[in-house]
């Protein structure tokens, strides 16, 4: 791997260095835009005591949910944990620590972590359980709470296309948390559907510059759909 070529060829290489007790930030919203195979590699490795930061925790048998089966997750920071029975069970039993975080605050905490902003004020969560133990402050007549940045030892990202330098392009709403998560990992690992040569992506149209990306791997994806809603063609 010379210069800016970020491509690795095995999932083992992609997740090398992940250790028990680390914090992993994951892109994705529900099952959309998740790094399916990187998650499976974490399952295969059997790394334990992980803190996962992700908007959701997948479903029982897909996405981050598979890491719950073997109790690999100690704590999860998420905004929404519905649609996952094992998750709810472990949480209710106190086997899993959960830090419920409003979705926008979670996105902003990841962005802040990547952007060297250690903390910011937001009105979101003021006067709610989310504000417990947090600093409150009135600014221009409105009440806000102080939220801190999140950084991860690893970030696991799913993009659509990338060039070898790690410049990323996302597709439709599979973008979601991925760009912020990509900035907030000490080691950011990305899996993509297509890898092209540097220069093939329009510089104006790159969503995530390669500077945030450490490792890049070509994957194939199941892309399971959580809520298959359709209309009939004539309606």
């Amino acid at each position: 791997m010379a210069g800016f070529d970020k491509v690795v060829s095995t999932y083992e290489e992609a997740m090398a260095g992940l250790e028990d007790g680390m914090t992993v930030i994951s892109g994705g919203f529900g099952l959309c835009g998740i790094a399916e195979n990187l998650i499976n590699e974490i399952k295969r490795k059997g790394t334990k005591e992980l803190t996962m930061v992700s908007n959701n925790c997948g479903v029982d048998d897909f996405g981050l949910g598979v890491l719950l089966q073997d109790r690999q997750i100690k704590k999860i920071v998420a905004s929404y944990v519905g649609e996952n029975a094992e998750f709810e069970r472990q949480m209710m039993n106190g086997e899993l620590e959960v830090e419920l975080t409003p979705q926008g605050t979670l996105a902003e905490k990841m962005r802040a972590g990547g952007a060297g902003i250690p903390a910011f004020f937001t009105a979101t969560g003021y006067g709610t359980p989310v504000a417990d133990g947090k600093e409150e402050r009135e600014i221009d007549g409105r009440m806000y709470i102080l939220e801190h940045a999140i950084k991860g030892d690893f970030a696991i990202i799913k993009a659509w296309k990338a060039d070898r330098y790690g410049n990323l392009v996302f597709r439709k709403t599979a973008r979601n948390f991925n760009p912020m998560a990509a900035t907030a990992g000490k080691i950011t690992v990305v899996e993509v559907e297509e890898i092209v040569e540097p220069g093939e992506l329009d510089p104006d149209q790159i969503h995530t510059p390669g500077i945030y990306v450490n490792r890049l791997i070509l994957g194939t994806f199941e892309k399971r759909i959580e809520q298959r809603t359709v209309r009939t063609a004539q309606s």
Partner: protein
Amino acid sequence: MALTREQLAQRVAQELQDGYYVNLGIGIPTLVANYIPKEIEVMLQSENGLLGMGQFPTEDEIDADLINAGKQTVTMATGASVFDSAESFAMIRGGHVDLTVLGAFEVDVNGNIASYMIPGKLIKGMGGAMDLVAGADNIIVTMTHASKHGVSKLLSNCTLPLTGKGCIKKVLTDLAYIEIKEGKFHLVERAPGVSVDEIIKLTEGELVIPNNVPEMKL
């Protein structure tokens, strides 16, 4: 008669204005999209990163990479844009969305809302709801007026953990359209065939009744 879910959506749709950017929560709010008046244009924001949400896809159009905040497969409307979650909530938190419609378990006379958690029972998480209620100036809460057992959801003080404090000004229930100001509920409209007395009986928080309470037009 109490409003049906479809009628609730219909009544909310009357609050839409031409050129509105609107975020519709999961459940009844989602149905509002079916009643957008023909003569106006609104654009739907989905907080997972889509402005200009279209209708559900046909079988042929289904795309796993294109879902809404309820994780349903959707399409894009003409002129749509896609962005990341930080940008999406910048829009929401920054007050750029013109109208937010969402459900709730409880609302109280101080504009507090509880909608995300029933301790020991239902813990799904707040998703984007806390950001939505904190960011929007113009929010309509849609909910049933009372539980099946007749317990009011319009309270003096919310009993469940709050989603937001002092942020709700308009509530549409299956029985009434109510505004919240100066620490009181104000009855504005009643559902067709529902009496003011019924509404009073099922409203625990202080309710101001004007001389004339018109029936909703649907």
